[in-house]
């Protein structure tokens, strides 16, 4: 073996990693480029429109930076941006817990029992297409403050989690159940040692999609008597105040927060499937 070929053998794993790294870099570069083009088009459109309701990205970013330092509208909005983000995250998280606690067992049950599915599928399909916002008046009339917000956001998260879990159960490989049974597993053990873990990845996808839907409902949900702020409440309030720069700053912040949460959930999915 010549010195050269030894050097080549030693370097091979590094060159392969380097190639993969370069591909990753390309992706990051393209993403940054896409972001730049997005801001550029937004800027041009804002300048062209010359409307207070469509501020330039520069103004929005400025408002965003300021909103972290001090409450943007004193009396009307006494909270800083980080407080708004924290309040919304709290609502999304508790709504997600409620929705998952209901959707996962229901999805498992319906996937496992064709009779339960035959019984419940039609009512659930009737409720599913109703947008969470349509429930606003109902929530205000029936539920206490706080619970109504939870209800609206949970509705948005519930169905993606439920449907994905149901579909996941149906797709569980029959062979895995056969294998478990021939290894001595009883019915309940098959359920929590095979069907539940086999369904997990798709349930997690449902959670990710559901939380995304949850963010979409948050402006409507936080229009309901909110006492401690939140991104949805903030966007709504600053829109009412004709403070469009801060309103857009809230919208941008909602997008960023939701994006980061989704990324975090993808990482969690990968880690769970490891």
């Amino acid at each position: 073996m010549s010195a050269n070929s030894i050097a080549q053998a030693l370097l091979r794993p590094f060159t392969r990693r380097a190639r993969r790294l370069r591909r990753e870099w390309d992706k990051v570069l393209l993403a940054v480029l896409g972001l730049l083009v997005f801001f550029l088009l937004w800027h041009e459109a804002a300048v062209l429109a010359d409307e207070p309701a469509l501020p330039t990205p520069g103004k929005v970013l400025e408002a965003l930076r300021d909103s972290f330092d001090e409450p943007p509208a004193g009396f009307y909005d006494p909270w800083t941006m980080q407080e708004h983000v924290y309040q919304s995250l709290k609502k999304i998280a508790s709504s997600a817990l409620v929705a998952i606690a209901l959707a996962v067992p229901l999805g498992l049950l319906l996937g496992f029992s064709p009779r339960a599915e035959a019984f419940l599928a039609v009512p659930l399909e009737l409720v599913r297409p109703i947008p969470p916002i349509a429930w606003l008046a109902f929530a205000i009339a029936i539920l206490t403050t706080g619970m109504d917000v939870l209800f609206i956001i949970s509705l948005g998260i519930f169905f993606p989690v439920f449907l994905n879990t149901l579909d996941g159960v149906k797709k569980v490989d029959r062979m895995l159940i056969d294998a478990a049974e021939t290894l001595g597993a009883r019915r309940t053990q098959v359920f929590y040692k095979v069907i539940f873990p086999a369904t997990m990845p798709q349930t997690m996808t449902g959670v990710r999609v559901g939380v995304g839907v949850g963010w979409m409902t948050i402006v409507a949900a936080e229009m309901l008597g909110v006492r401690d702020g939140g991104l949805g409440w903030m966007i709504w309030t600053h829109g009412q105040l004709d403070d469009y720069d801060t309103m857009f700053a809230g919208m941008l912040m909602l997008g960023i927060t939701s994006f980061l949460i989704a990324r975090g959930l993808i990482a969690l999915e990968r880690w769970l499937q490891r």
Partner: protein
Amino acid sequence: MSGVDVAVSKGGARSTAATPVIEARGVSKSFERDDRITEAVRDFALSITEGELVCLVGSSGCGKTTLLRMMAGLERPTTGEVLIRGRPIDGPGADRGMIFQSFALFPWRSVRRNIEFGLEVRRVPKEERHRISDRHIDLVGLRGFEHAHPRELSGGMQQRVGLARALANDPAVLLMDEPFGSLDAQTRNLMQLELLRIWQGTRKTVVFVTHSVDESVFLADRIVVLTARPASVKSVVEVALPRPRDRASPEFAAIRHRVLQDLTEEVLKGMAQQDRPGVA
């Protein structure tokens, strides 16, 4: 040609032992689907003794997997009964380990946790579980891969996990459903040798379903050739060749020829059936 008749094989001697581990009596099985009844097995009888390695050979779709699934308890016979050590089988159980063509490993579990599954559901204490899985990891040659997940392993290695997982339960019988059918030729030959080594070490009774005549002659003490659907016993061929068997020997070829002849007859019958549906 003397090898065929006079060679003293352990397998041949064992097959004369008294207590059957698995016994099928007048077993028939029909499936009903869309108002059509398909007969998969008809009047099948077989007795398998302790420590025997029996191959069921049949053309594809003849009902041999259905037979094995009835022995596992995953299907019930329409008529007749299957017994394990004299008791009728009424469902799957840890005394009959099954090995699948598609491996059927739990993808979210590591190699060790796959092997420990049967022990876990039978509530074997953790230390003992670990000790048993350790022994089986060594037995199938997976040391160093305990923490790997199935998707990180080659097909051959995955089936080693399948084998270890079934053996860890210490079953009375191993039911193997074309276990090497999805492996490439080299891996397949290697796994056949591995199975024989493990079989000779553990003295387990093995029922091995395959459509490969070569595989059955290489492995079996006794080959049961099945008829075309519905499956019943066409012929039983004793393989009294000493192991390891030489595929190139004339004795090997003679037995292979005999089995192939019986099987070909049935394959042709099966094809004729397909051409004229409705004729049984």
